[in-house]
């Protein structure tokens, strides 16, 4: 059944290259949008086609059915779920370390001042997302568990509707829904940054289908290089980056700035201890997996070795080496 999907990796064009690469993405407000908006992937040797998805789950399914080669800005939860359930892809790049783009909002007038006040309340969250994980971590840190609140499984758009109508008292979600709720009488109780401090770092990744990577390592390296450019642009000229990302989402620069509140990882920092360095990421993923297993959401949490194997930093290393060469 493999290969009956849309990706054209099998039908090699000239030079042993595929006719095109297919990239899955979620339209988040992140530096990953920059090459999408600015045609950054034209730097690659083959044309890139970007496909939009509504959820990480759909992106993992697309990878599993060989329909796409890369997935951009894939949340840590779908990444983990996909890996533990046997989808074969490699994590090659950290898009961002989640800071303020995800968070727990409560109604201003609900009297909820603390996570503990959530007891018995209805909290909207998207199942199998990093928001889901974030909420459960927040509860755990507050000495509570999922049973203490009423979790309402909602996609972000439904969280908006439910909030609008007052059907939920709180929600753990991400931008733009998070900001939308905040602007509609919401009070942000805690964000991804707070969780990260407590050691529950959530991350968005870029991943590549293993089979594709083995066949076309050069293209993967080029892909990473495009991402490096984007992160570098943000680093050097954030206003320009806001403008570009804002243009994609039809948002003003200020709105974009408000939404882009995570720590975007540059090429230089990819191997830092915050990111791939010191197996930080692998441990993060393992923590998510074990947590999910505890919740009964997944059957097998695997082990650190497994997740280390799912991370391939060779492209980053190669890029860093090249960079050094040119600098020298």
């Amino acid at each position: 059944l493999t290969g009956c999907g849309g990706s054209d990796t099998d039908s090699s064009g000239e030079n042993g290259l595929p006719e095109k690469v297919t990239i899955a993405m979620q339209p988040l407000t992140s530096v990953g949008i920059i090459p999408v908006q600015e045609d950054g992937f034209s730097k690659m040797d083959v044309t890139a086609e970007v496909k939009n998805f509504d959820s990480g789950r759909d992106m993992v399914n697309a990878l599993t059915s060989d329909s796409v080669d890369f997935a951009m800005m894939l949340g840590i939860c779908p990444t983990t779920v996909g890996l533990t359930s046997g989808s074969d892809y490699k994590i090659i790049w950290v898009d961002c370390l989640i800071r303020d783009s995800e968070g727990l909002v409560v109604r201003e007038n609900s009297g909820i001042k603390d996570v503990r006040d959530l007891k018995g309340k209805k909290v909207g969250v998207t199942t199998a997302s990093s928001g889901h994980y974030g909420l459960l971590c927040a509860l755990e840190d507050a000495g509570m568990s999922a049973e203490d609140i009423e979790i309402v499984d909602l996609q972000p758009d439904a969280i908006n509707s439910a909030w609008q109508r007052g059907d939920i008292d709180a929600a753990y979600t991400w931008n733009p829904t998070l900001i939308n709720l905040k602007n509609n009488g919401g009070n942000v109780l805690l964000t991804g940054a707070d969780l990260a401090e407590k050691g529950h770092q959530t991350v968005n990744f870029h991943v590549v289908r293993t089979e594709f990577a083995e066949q076309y390592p050069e293209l993967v390296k080029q892909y990473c290089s495009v991402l490096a450019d984007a992160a570098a642009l943000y680093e050097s000229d954030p206003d320009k980056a806001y403008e570009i990302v804002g243009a994609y989402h039809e948002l003003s620069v200020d709105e974009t700035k408000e939404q882009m509140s995570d720590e975007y990882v540059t090429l230089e920092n990819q191997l830092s201890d915050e990111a791939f360095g010191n197996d930080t990421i692998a441990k993060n993923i393992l923590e998510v997996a074990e947590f999910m297993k505890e919740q009964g959401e997944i059957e097998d949490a695997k082990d650190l070795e497994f997740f280390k194997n799912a991370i391939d930093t060779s492209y980053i290393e190669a890029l860093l080496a090249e960079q050094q060469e040119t600098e020298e």
Partner: protein
Amino acid sequence: MINRPLSVKRRSAAGNGKHRLKHPIRTTNLISAGVVLAILVVWMIVSQQGIVDEKIVPSVRSVWEALVSISVEGYKGSTLLQHLGASFFRLFTAFGLAIVTAVPLGLLSGQNEKIRAAFEPIIEFVRPLPPLAYYTVLVLWMGIENESKIALLFLACFAPIFIACAAAVQKIPASYINAATTLGASNRQVFWKVVLPYSAPDIFTGIRTAMGHGYSTLVAAEMVAAASGIGWMVLDASNWLRSDVIFAGIIVMGITGILIDKIFRLAEKRLVPWKGNL
């Protein structure tokens, strides 16, 4: 394909067709069973030989185990029966509401072309609409609890019943009504003793169609803010990439669907035995 003996068979089928369909001869049953078996065998071979990924086609064994575990231990807090129960509560509430509203409105519309003219544009507009198109609107209007789910199922059930009722009443030959009035029946008696029983078989068909519509909207209805229900189970399983549970859910839904239809057919035979003899 067509030969003499066959055309003779058809002759008997034309006369006794109903009987023949009810009790098909053994061979056809064997063939049906054989096909089901063959599908299972192919599935076993494909999934166990590692020809395809376990994610893409889970093995028969794992699906069976999922089925057993869902039935016995449950899936996320509810057993299979509870999931089915939650779904059926929604489905049958919506279905009941649809019957209670669509039957009288449909019958009225069939009797009176002005009432019909008033309802027709609304029905015609809503009928072809994909449920998912207006689901967001329903959630905005009715919230994330059962109301919006039931409303979605209700809308799926309403049109088939309404249309069947209106058409059935219009179909009644004048002589049926004339016979009653000349025997002394009042308008009210004509309605209850002639129009209604005459329309009953068609109403029943409409009700069966409605149930089918509602059933196939079940998963859509459980997309938002559900935490139980067989549709939600399948959706949640796809969130967690649990192919085995997805397959188990599909099998349960398929079989349940067949059973529901069978029950309706049986009820039809019981309740309106004059069907086909009008």
